[in-house]
């Protein structure tokens, strides 16, 4: 699928979007976290999900995977309910969602990405080991395979989670803040990994915090603040107006940003 322009890839899949979310509403107790969200993610895009704290970004990707029960709405993956397509969707949770002092090794964690394909009761073997080592090489952690996971830096832990997702060999990846608190090396590694995934025809949805890097890293964007503010190509949707709608005018980035290129002056 590599190299096919996105429009054609979509048609090839019978026009089915990679992910289609309809009328999704999620509430924790009385408080709505997502309100009537419609969303279409075309195949082969690198999409950032941005929005202020509490905008429901994490909830959105958890709801797509059925990890939180929606009040209303439906989710389709390649035209079928998520439940039937589970194997096609890989997940990179927030790094701090697990206890990194758990007694296990880097290789072991990465092999967990194969558990879904293995199914119930079957144990990981040489094939899984081999795939996990390959993925570790891709994220540059080969020499850490035997390490206990608490001995890793934050950026390395993040890359372990990415490797675990890579061995899932999914077609769609949902990532929750993979850039959160990582070092520059890891950030570069993740970006090149993401672009490699897009080149291989994967669809990647990333919950993202750093507005400045959106035009540089992503080609598709969804702005979220409980409701969907905008969703589409970065070039047309990542605008001052939409950002102000999403953030309520509290974004210092607004005055500086330009499309599609890095702006060194955007730091203020």
């Amino acid at each position: 699928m590599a190299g096919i322009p996105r429009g054609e890839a979509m048609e090839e899949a019978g026009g089915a979007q990679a992910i289609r979310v309809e009328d999704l509403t999620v509430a924790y107790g009385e408080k709505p976290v997502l309100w009537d969200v419609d969303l279409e993610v075309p195949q082969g895009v690198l999409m950032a999900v941005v929005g202020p704290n509490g905008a429901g970004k994490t909830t959105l990707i958890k709801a797509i995977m059925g990890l939180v029960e929606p009040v209303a709405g439906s989710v389709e993956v390649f035209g079928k309910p998520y439940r039937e397509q589970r194997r096609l969707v890989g997940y990179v949770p927030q790094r701090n969602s697990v206890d990194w002092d758990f007694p296990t090794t880097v290789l072991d964690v990465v092999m967990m990405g194969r558990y879904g394909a293995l199914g119930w009761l079957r144990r990981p073997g040489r094939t899984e080991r081999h795939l996990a080592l390959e993925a570790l090489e891709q994220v540059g952690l080969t020499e850490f395979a035997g390490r206990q996971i608490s001995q890793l830096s934050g950026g390395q832990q993040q890359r372990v989670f990415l490797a675990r997702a890579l061995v899932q060999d999914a077609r769609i990846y949902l990532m929750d803040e993979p850039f959160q608190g990582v070092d520059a090396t890891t950030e570069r590694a993740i970006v090149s990994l993401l672009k490699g995934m897009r080149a291989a025809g994967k669809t990647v949805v990333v919950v993202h915090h750093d507005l400045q890097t959106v035009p540089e890293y992503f080609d598709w964007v969804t702005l979220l603040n409980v409701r969907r503010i905008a969703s589409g190509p970065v070039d047309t949707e990542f605008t001052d107006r939409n950002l102000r709608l999403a953030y309520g005018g509290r974004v210092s980035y607004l005055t500086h940003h330009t499309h599609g290129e890095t702006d060194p002056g955007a730091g203020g």
Partner: protein
Amino acid sequence: MDLLDLPVRIFSDYTLRSVALGAAVLGVANGALGSFAVLRRQSLLGDAISHAALPGIALAFLLTGSKASLVLLLGAAAAGWIGTLLVLGIVRNSRIKQDSALGLILSVFFGFGLVLLTYIQRIPTASQAGLDKFLFGQAATLLKRDVQTIAVLGGVALVLLMVFWKEFKLLSFDPEFGATLGFPARSLDILLTTLLVVAIVIGLQTVGVVLMSAMVVAPAAAARQWTDRLGVMVLLSALFGALAGVAGALVSGAAARLPTGPTIVLCLTGIVAVSLFLAPNRGLVWGWVRERGSRRELRVDAVLADLRILAMQHEGEERAHPIEVLRTMAVGHGGVDNSLRVLEERGLARQTESGDWTITARGMEEARRQSGTREEAE
């Protein structure tokens, strides 16, 4: 009654052997399943389950009039289970947090159980019920068929733990990721908790409801100190549990009818203490040794840096300096004498015949290198 005879008597004395076997099985089961409880931060759940089991035992006796261990254990398991479900229900449907919910259920069920026990002992026909052994445990009361029940139930729990090993590991490390792979966290949680209930229930007659949670938590906590692998941790924990169980059961049986629970807990305390202090890497003693070592290294580096400063102040001439000067410079940290000795051994400093100290050429180089890396780090 001689404790030294015990090892011999295990092999000759039939009763003793079956008591030891029962204690070993319940120790293995609780050690293994306790590992998962500890890693999932559910240590207190074991306490709640065991206390909640007491009214179940009493009610099972009142309803059936039977003291057969299987009947009583079924009652215990049912009550332990209901207690666990209530804890989950309270947490899910109210603002009460898990620790408070555990405390509530634990004390309410235990209190109710004590009331029932007192009532049972007042019934004239049941005066010999002897259910109070479930409070602090009495291994000597284990009959052959009790041990059989323990062995079968414990064995089943352990087999299931091994069968679902991969799933339980995933559940314990990252349940949400597991759910996205198609391993439902809720069902696995229920299964694993049920196995824990089984392990706890088979230990109640030997260890007692009051101290049973030690059997769940202590072996696992000790085992975690020694290893960074889940498999090794579970094996070690099972071994520690069995050791403490057997030792406690035998000692309590031999020595003037001591209750077994407290004896086992004393054995566990020994294992935990040794592990906490002496385990490599995680042990406190090694931590102290490492800290002392690095503190000494820092002092040595500081003295070397002082020597370099002195040498640079008197550039061109090789001058030795009395130790008092170095002591004055080393305000805030002692051990100047020792540090100089270490430097001398490494050939970085030299003592002159007059007893004064000077830096060597190699010392100069080393000190420059160190100050370089320090500045780089800043």
